[in-house]
């Protein structure tokens, strides 16, 4: 059967326990009186279809078990994932400090070209904040990773974060394809599909979210 989509990206949510990974994947429900059957069992992953510059992109987004410590996480954990959302909780200093450990763990265990993004979640809890937005931004600059503050509770920036990560993975893949097929001009008919020349992504534009 013909594929009905252009790209399939597997994405992973990781970070310390309690930072809000499950809440980012699961719609935040305040209605404690109506705990549904689904929320009792919990979501393993979601499939979402988005449109990126006219391409149909399927995202398979996985939650991860929070009890797992980064020390115990190995290669199998990251297998096949092309994008990783590193989540910390802006009201929890420790979860922010651990982002560095998570990044090291990814470098040791995940595929070298996995796209990463840092999310400072629970930004609705201003009064309880322990990590300033500036520190989040600084960390992102240090690692050259995009960063955005989110609130799973208010659905703030969650969707746009996934779009951003997906767009970066797509750009990286297209760049790779071009590199492995530099003689694009000779492939005649196929050239049309290579579409408008995208501007080379400079490091500055990569950090436009900052």
């Amino acid at each position, binding site marked *: *059967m013909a594929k009905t989509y252009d790209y399939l990206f597997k994405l992973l949510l990781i970070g310390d326990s309690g930072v809000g990974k499950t809440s980012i994947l699961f719609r935040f429900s305040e209605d404690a009186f109506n705990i*549904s*059957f*689904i929320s009792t*069992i919990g*979501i393993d992953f979601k499939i979402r279809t988005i449109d990126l510059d006219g391409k149909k992109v*399927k995202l*398979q987004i996985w939650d991860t078990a929070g009890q797992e410590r980064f020390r115990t996480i190995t290669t199998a954990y990251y297998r096949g994932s092309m994008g990783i959302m590193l989540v910390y909780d802006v009201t929890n200093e420790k979860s922010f400090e651990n982002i560095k450990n998570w990044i090291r763990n990814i470098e040791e265990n995940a595929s070298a070209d996995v796209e990463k993004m840092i999310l400072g979640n629970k930004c609705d809890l201003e009064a309880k904040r322990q990590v300033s937005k500036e520190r989040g931004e600084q960390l992102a600059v240090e690692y050259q990773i995009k960063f955005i503050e989110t609130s799973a509770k208010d659905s703030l920036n969650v969707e746009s974060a996934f779009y951003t990560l997906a767009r970066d993975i797509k750009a990286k893949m297209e760049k790779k394809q071009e590199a492995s097929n530099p003689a694009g001009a000779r492939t005649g008919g196929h050239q049309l599909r290579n579409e408008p020349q995208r501007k080379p992504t400079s490091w500055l534009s990569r950090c436009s979210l900052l």
Partner: protein
Amino acid sequence: MSEVEHKETPVENEEKEYVEDGKNKFIVKCKFCGSRILDKKSAKYITLEKDLPLMQQDNNRKEGEIQNEPVNEFYHVENMYTFENIGFTHTVANCKYLSCADCDAGPVGYYDNDTKHSYVAISRIVHA
């Protein structure tokens, strides 16, 4: 007798206004939020009997008890990436339940871990 043997697909399937060529004629959407679950003509119509937990469990039910109802009509999805938007729960008794990716309503069907096929309960979705 030979007349009977020549009968092909069950006549009743032909009569379903939402089935065409054995597939879903319309887009499949979430009943509650309208989230798009399946594109039209992407899944096969089948009948089979399966007990599914109720979308809304009675809060006064006995602890640990799950209220089910039998469901008979499904859309059969062989490849999970056929779905437009869908959630998969953690595994329970070798199956995962399907839920709306946008409002988390469910189960709207189930996924069989052995065959890796998914089944969307037609009584729990709307066509558009």
